[in-house]
């Protein structure tokens, strides 16, 4: 019951954030022609069950990928709301799927290089690394790698390059994401996990979609 409630709450929060951001995007689009909301964000995601900035070698062994988008919260575009779906690959502890939304603050560092601090909420479906079993009427039944849904609290830092003077462009970025995964089991109420992220935001010029 708790698991279903956690999933519902997280989904509602993600949808609420998305709708709120959509409204802001519409408002911004009327007076901010250069900045483009809703880029396609493609990432490589290197995952590990680890304490922050520890056991980075494990991150490099587990390569997954993510797709997402984002929308600016303000006119100066240094606050953004991100939405991501990440396919986590991890042979050691099992794969997973993470749905998350995070609010990012991006102060410019120098030129078009910015730094980033972000935090938010997510829901992870963690699978198992090997075949698993349950018993029904005394008989063991394989359930494959069936996993469990868990509330996730992501917190990240990063940096990237952004230049919105071209017609169609890709802005690269790097990031490190620390996550606390809730209710892993009865003895580990929070489990630390991490993601090394690298990717790019593809910024299509949506204004041209309506042109003939």
């Amino acid at each position, binding site marked *: 019951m708790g698991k279903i409630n956690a999933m519902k709450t997280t989904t509602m929060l993600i949808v609420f954030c998305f709708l709120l951001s959509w409204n802001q995007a519409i408002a911004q689009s009327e007076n901010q022609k250069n900045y483009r909301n809703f880029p396609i964000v493609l990432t490589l995601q290197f995952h590990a069950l680890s304490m922050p900035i520890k056991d980075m070698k*494990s991150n490099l062994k587990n390569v997954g990928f993510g797709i997402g988008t984002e929308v600016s919260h303000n006119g100066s575009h240094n606050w953004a709301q991100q939405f991501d779906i990440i396919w986590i690959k991890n042979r050691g502890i099992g794969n997973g799927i993470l749905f998350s939304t995070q609010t990012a603050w991006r102060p410019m560092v120098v030129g078009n290089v910015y730094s980033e601090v972000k935090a938010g909420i997510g829901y992870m479906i963690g699978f*198992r690394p090997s*075949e698993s079993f349950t*018993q029904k009427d005394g008989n063991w039944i394989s359930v494959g790698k069936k996993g469990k849904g868990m509330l996730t609290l992501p917190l990240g830092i990063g940096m990237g390059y952004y230049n919105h003077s071209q017609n169609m462009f890709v802005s690269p970025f790097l990031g490190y994401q620390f996550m606390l995964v809730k209710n892993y*089991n009865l*003895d580990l109420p929070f489990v630390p996990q991490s993601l090394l992220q690298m990717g790019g935001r593809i910024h299509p010029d949506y204004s041209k979609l309506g042109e003939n």
Partner: protein
Amino acid sequence: MKTLVLIAFTFWFTSLMVMAQGFEVQTCNEAPDLYASAKISELQSILDQLTHNKVPGAVAAIWDESGYWEISSGYSKIEGQVPMQTCHLHYIQSITKTYMAVSILQLSEEGKIALDEPFIHYLPSNLTDGIPNSDKITVRMLLNHTSGIREYNDDPTYVTRLLQNPNRIFQPEEYLDYIRGKKPDFEPGSKYSYRNTNYLILALIAEKITGNHKAYMKEKIFKPLGLKNTFYRIEQGDSYGDKLVNSYWDRYSNSILENVSVLQNSNVVSMIGDDGTITTPKEAVIFLKGFIEGKLLSESSMEMMQEWVLNRDGKPVYGLGLNTTLFQGFEGIGHSGGGLGSGSQLYYFPKKDLYIFLAVNMGTVTQSPIHKEVEKILDEVYRVILN
């Protein structure tokens, strides 16, 4: 280039197979030892209850007034439905501490170690540096868990590394890095608090004194008692003639069990002193019986091992590598063991002159809803055996 690709693919495929399938385990032809105990059928029915309540496999070995008898139920490997048999080898986890304590007491009887000397006298400074109170903590305090040294298993960096890297072997000295420089739990000798680190240090001492404490244990414990199927400091990936049981863990505490044989094996291979032994049910009982009957140590050493320190409730709890607990109102002397993929108990009941070994191939170190029913059924086991 093609060869390189082929080698890489073979390596990748083999490692996937190992990760996915656990260990091969075979049935054996040996029949279990069954003497005319009236309790056999009743206990068999209780073990069957256990394995019908989501425990993969279970064994019980008993030495009572009717002699030695043993029974089993369920599977040693769920995949392929390999039945659990009494000839199979089990991880006895922390029961290893009793074997380690006997080794230390044997070294003491040989005059090679003094129990009331600080342990730093027996180890090089590169191992003891940064361990708080190392000049005050005696060998005896390590043996009875009154050292105040921190638990390496509690360090989140260690736990995450262990779970993330199921094939990784941790070096014994590496475990000490997780407690170096950390505030001790209490002043040495002032309290009792069970810590695996104490027995890791004892194993390092035994290694330093003997040069090879695995060989010493074999020579001084296994050989005198005729234990041919007991192995300490096991080899990674060795299925010991396909007799080592597979291990299962309820990772997410939702009553689903995954095969964690690879993780369990690497974990046990890594640990010394506090863990690291596999044995058959019969040989576990033979060890405890031989030890209690004084075949391994002098009477004074045996008495010392049963000088109990008190827990916070003021009740006797631990001697030197021995634990005392009440089961159904009867005092049991021995040890229990728990790991990611197994759980076991080995106890002697002086008032009944009875020995019992119980083991399951399911993890007991993290909680699972399955455990609630298991605990009730285990109470039934002791009720039948002791009453």
